[in-house]
């Protein structure tokens, strides 16, 4: 029997986590801009605009920051594709092509959590 304590989170897993973070921020900044376009027809558009633009800008900045970190460490996006209820992401990991298949419903839920986190950060920043 091998000691289970030998198993620790490897670099690979940390990069997988970062990859997902990158995808989530990328989706969020696009979703926020999309929502902004929809809301531009609403009477209170001016009130919404600042918030959504702020959110989108923050998500885009995070997306680009994580993407740069990934690239520096040999991870590069090779393409994304919506396949029914899945979101397939092809990326190159130190020369090897790999694929990650995310559930769209889970990504949407995770984006909601990101927004909550962003709201929390803003609240703390304004204190």
């Amino acid at each position, binding site marked *: 029997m091998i000691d289970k304590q030998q198993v620790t989170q490897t670099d*690979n*897993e940390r990069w997988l*986590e970062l990859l997902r973070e990158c995808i989530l921020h990328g989706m969020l900044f696009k979703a926020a801009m999309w929502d902004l376009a929809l809301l531009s027809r609403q009477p209170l558009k001016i009130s919404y605009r600042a918030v959504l633009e702020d959110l989108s800008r923050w998500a885009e900045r995070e997306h680009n920051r994580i993407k740069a970190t990934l690239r520096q460490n040999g991870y590069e996006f090779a393409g994304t594709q919506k396949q*029914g209820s899945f979101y397939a992401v092809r990326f190159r990991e130190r020369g090897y092509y790999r694929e990650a*298949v995310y559930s769209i*419903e889970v990504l949407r*839920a995770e984006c909601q959590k990101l927004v909550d986190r962003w709201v929390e950060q803003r609240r703390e920043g304004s204190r």
Partner: protein
Amino acid sequence: MQSKRIIFLADMQSFYASIEKAANPSLQGKPVVVAGDPERRSGVVLAACPIAKSYGVASPEALWQAQQKCRDLVVVKPRMEMYIRASLQITRIFESFTDLVEPYSIDEQFLDVTGSLSLFGDPWKLAETIRERVRLETGVICRIGIGENKILAKMACDNFAKKQEKGIFWLEKEKLHDTLWPLPIEKLFGVGSRMKRHLHMMGIYRIGQMAEMSPAVLTRRWGVNGEVLWRTAHGLDDSPVSPKTHDLQKGIGHHMTLPRDYHTAREIKVVLLELCEEVCRRARSKQLMGGVVSVGCRGADFDTHTGFWRQMKLDDCTNDAMTLYKAVCRLFERYWQHTPVRSVGVHLGQLTEDDVCQLDFFADKERQRSLAYVMDSIRAKYGNAAILRASSLLSAGQAQERARKIGGHYK
């Protein structure tokens, strides 16, 4: 070259409940169960999240019992289509590590990773990477049992990995004496509650006791099954991980648990006809016919085993619902003892291709066949309830309700 195989059994933790929690952040931190029909407060708990389990909620138990145990229980309606999609997504993740993936159930899959280790590292590292990918991509936590064959991997997962925080356990054959053998006999794969009673009567309480017995004693008592149990206790299993294991179909069957006891033949036959329709439709969709029909009925008290399960050979192979129904009725009338029925099943076996069939002077089989295929295409396009028999509109009929479900649970 490694002589031993490395097999993983990946089991998803509270599969349905985990999917629901991952898809809905408002459920985080709450006790969640996926169960029958929350509005009707009926049905059984299909899956309970770890928080709900900490209140003593278990699956399968009646929803009302679970709600009595946990006052704040959040009940989510099952979405079987989504769970099937998630299971396929997980298979796809596994297939990026090895081509030898065998789905064992909707939430359990075997992986033969022997050939993948040179690329992905040692089994522990690989198991951890797989777990992480499943968690990140589907939101589901999986536990992995490792062994040199399927039976060891399965027992490693059920008896050890599920109980450890890390969720990974390697059950080595050489160390069974210290790991598996001290466990109670019911922890052995293949030993259910009835077998446990028999074994207790023989004075066998621990897995080690069975392992130390002569296989001949077990074979005398249970035939080949006795030998299988002895081999399981020793962690012996040569079966391969076969990705195509479900491709070869031996039979097509449908079973239905009724919402109440049915007392009259008239009522029961309505459901039998609906089951014949479903069985034949599935057979036609695979271009198959069957030569042996089986029918089963059981009473409400599943412990006392009232009812019957009988089969007969048909004159000709068929996938025509009315032909099958006539045979089903013959069996039913012969073996039903006028006891209340709570669950019924119809099964078509001895399958053959349906491109050749025996023609009949007195029946227009071509016409029946064309009609059946037209009905199938209407259902495929507009849904299962788009075209129904008039009898299904009677109070005994279940076809409309079943059209909204997969495997007896809501889509």
